[in-house]
């Protein structure tokens, strides 16, 4: 045995060895608290399982990379089936009763899921090699990405519109979908600043907070309605965008990131400490809910007024309000998207993209970089302000705790991993980074592990972001005479 096979085995053994070193403290040891004393127990079967899965997985990956179809196909399928079987056994055999049981067998579940997913990936890669091996490279015509993405976008939008009407969709899913859409909208807003204009803004959550507090204070103090406050909150956030924009105009890259990060924290700390105005850490409660064209969602409307369910003659159901909230944020997100798609074709949007590519060239072509950057900051902040008012009205409560740095970090991750500037990429990344962890909340701390793993996988396979395709803003022009 020499040649590639031995190399593959050696490689797989090496990787499994490294995995073993890493997995021993993470998987092989378990610290539990019995009574008051912590005790250390071992979990050798799980540990061995992890190493074996990684050994065979690596073997499959290297075989698939060499283009051998059959071996990795079999290996991948075996892993996928094995993982799936083990999942079934875990779920039924141990009895999935209650959250406490989860914790006990999550390592097994987690491992099986990894094995299953990895197996599917390897088998898929191998299957593609298998199908492609007889074709000449010339026959592999590149996909028309623009068209493909357009249809994907329409399909996603259609799915989002129909989601609440689908059978089997419960309150919880709508709640998670509303949250995801909030992040999609924030991601699209930040995409203007980071993706198009290329200004790395690590304090975007500040504008989200300005929008949320604007609405909360106006609603609680003056009793203004959501629809009046929405543009006010957007305008205030945009003003803060300009306020932040001015001092940081000269900064680029890392320096800009540091200053925007500081700005984000400043806003949060002001909200926390300006007790007379913001009610400090206690937050603001009883924020007004939006109405459906003047019809509130109340089970018992006041005398002489109508409510949503009395007007339409349906029985009161709290889900109505949730679904309305869902459609509200969906509409706001669509507005953000339509705005971005349109402005990319206008001189200002093109100037943003050009500024991201090369600031010096922009200056030499007559672009005023100050105004261009300020407009990007202001418009990006405006959409964060809209999303912030929505957040406030959805929660009915705001406090500084909702606007910590981790929110900004997640948003930047969504934009960067989605593929800077790609609208669909941002939406997909928001679903992966926010929706999945939120939906699988039962997995407790493992969901953060999955979050990290998702980021690592995207970085490995799509280092430029999920969707790197950039649709040109103009296509054809009359051919040269």
């Amino acid at each position, binding site marked *: 045995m020499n040649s590639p096979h031995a190399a593959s085995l050696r490689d797989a053994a090496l990787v499994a060895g490294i995995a073993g070193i890493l997995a021993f403290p993470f998987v092989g040891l378990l610290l539990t608290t019995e009574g008051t004393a912590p005790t250390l127990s071992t979990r050798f079967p799980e540990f061995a399982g992890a190493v074996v899965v990684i050994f065979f997985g690596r073997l499959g990956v290297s075989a698939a990379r060499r283009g051998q179809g059959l071996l990795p196909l079999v290996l991948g399928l075996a892993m996928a089936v094995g993982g799936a079987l083990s999942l079934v056994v875990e779920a039924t055999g141990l009895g999935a009763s209650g959250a406490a049981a989860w914790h006990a067998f999550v390592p097994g579940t987690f491992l099986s899921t990894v094995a299953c997913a990895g197996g599917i990936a390897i088998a898929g890669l191998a299957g593609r090699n298998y199908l492609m091996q007889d074709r000449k490279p010339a026959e592999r015509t590149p996909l028309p990405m623009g068209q493909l993405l357009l249809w994907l976008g329409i399909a996603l939008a259609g799915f989002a519109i129909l989601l609440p009407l689908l059978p089997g969709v419960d309150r919880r899913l709508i709640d998670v979908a509303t949250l995801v859409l909030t992040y999609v909208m924030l991601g699209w807003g930040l995409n203007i600043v980071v993706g198009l204009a290329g200004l790395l803004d690590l304090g975007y959550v500040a504008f989200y907070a300005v929008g949320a507090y604007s609405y909360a204070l106006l609603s609680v103090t003056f009793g203004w309605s959501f629809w009046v406050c929405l543009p006010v909150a957007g305008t205030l956030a945009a003003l803060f965008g300009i306020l932040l924009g001015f001092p940081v105009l000269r900064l680029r890259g890392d320096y800009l990131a540091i200053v925007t990060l500081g700005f984000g924290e400043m806003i949060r700390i002001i909200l926390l400490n300006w007790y007379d105005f913001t009610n400090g850490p206690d937050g603001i409660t009883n924020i007004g809910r939006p109405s459906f064209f003047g019809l509130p969602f109340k089970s018992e409307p006041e005398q002489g007024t109508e409510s949503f369910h009395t007007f339409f003659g349906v029985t009161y159901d709290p889900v109505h309000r949730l679904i309305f909230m869902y459609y509200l944020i969906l509409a706001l997100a669509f507005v953000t998207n339509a705005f971005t798609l349109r402005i990319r074709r206008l*001189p200002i949007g*093109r*100037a943003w*993209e*050009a500024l991201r*590519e*090369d600031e*010096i*060239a*922009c*200056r*030499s*072509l*007559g*672009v*005023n*970089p100050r105004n261009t950057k300020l407009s990007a900051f202001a418009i990006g902040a405006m959409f964060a302000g809209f999303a912030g008012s929505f957040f406030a009205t959805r929660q009915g409560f705001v406090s500084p705790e909702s606007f910590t740095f981790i929110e900004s970090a997640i948003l930047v991750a969504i934009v960067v991993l989605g593929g800077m500037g790609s609208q669909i990429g941002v939406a997909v990344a928001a679903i992966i980074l926010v929706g999945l962890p939120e939906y699988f909340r039962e997995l407790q701390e493992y969901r953060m592990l999955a979050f990290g793993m998702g980021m690592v996988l995207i970085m490995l396979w799509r280092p430029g972001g999920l969707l790197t395709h*950039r649709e*040109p*803003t*103009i*296509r*054809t*022009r*009359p*051919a*040269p*005479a």
Partner: protein
Amino acid sequence: MTPLLKVTGVRTFYGAIEALRGVDVEVAEGEIVTLIGSNGAGKSTLLMTICGNPRARTGEIQFADQDITRLRTWDIVRLGIAQTPEGRRIFPRMTVLENLQMGAVANPAVDFDDGVRHAFELFPVLGRRRNQSGGTLSGGEQQMLAIARALISQPRLLLLDEPSLGLAPRLARQIFAVLREINRTSGTTIFLVEQNAYHALRLCHRGYVLANGLVTLEGTGSELLANPAVQAAYLGGTGQ
């Protein structure tokens, strides 16, 4: 007649380093003027100073009888001075057409379709690549794109920083031929900085030699080509 561009006693500093030590240059309307000199003589600095970045510490720069010494780069450009900066600096992820659109920023009054048609006549290869992103073009094509982008705004004065840099001799000759064509048909005034002294001096009406931040020689292109000092320093001493 006063010249279109008049640089008088300009001194420019990088920190404590004096890059230009009192430069006087004049470019008349419709002329091609070239500036040659060795590395570090201050050629690019002069072009950049005309565009206001870095600013001249003393001296005056006049364009079309207007003092532009203290204006900001983008305002200077909007007066009708287009520049192709050193190193081409096209927008790599944007398509050829989008790059050309950015060229129209300085002069919103121009007819973009006309400008594009004209650009594709000058550089047919750009027409074939019009939906391709700038980063996928070859070096020569990128240089053509940079020049075409600068011309879209129909400038009165075109500043070029080493258009032949890194190009094969045949491509460089092609670029110079196009520059002559632009000057002849559109009457665009061209101020050209070059290391490729032989081609640049053959192309230009007049030339300046810059050394250590000072203009040391000036004259018509043929005068400078025949000058023994120029031959020795910039033409390898074989200027027969």
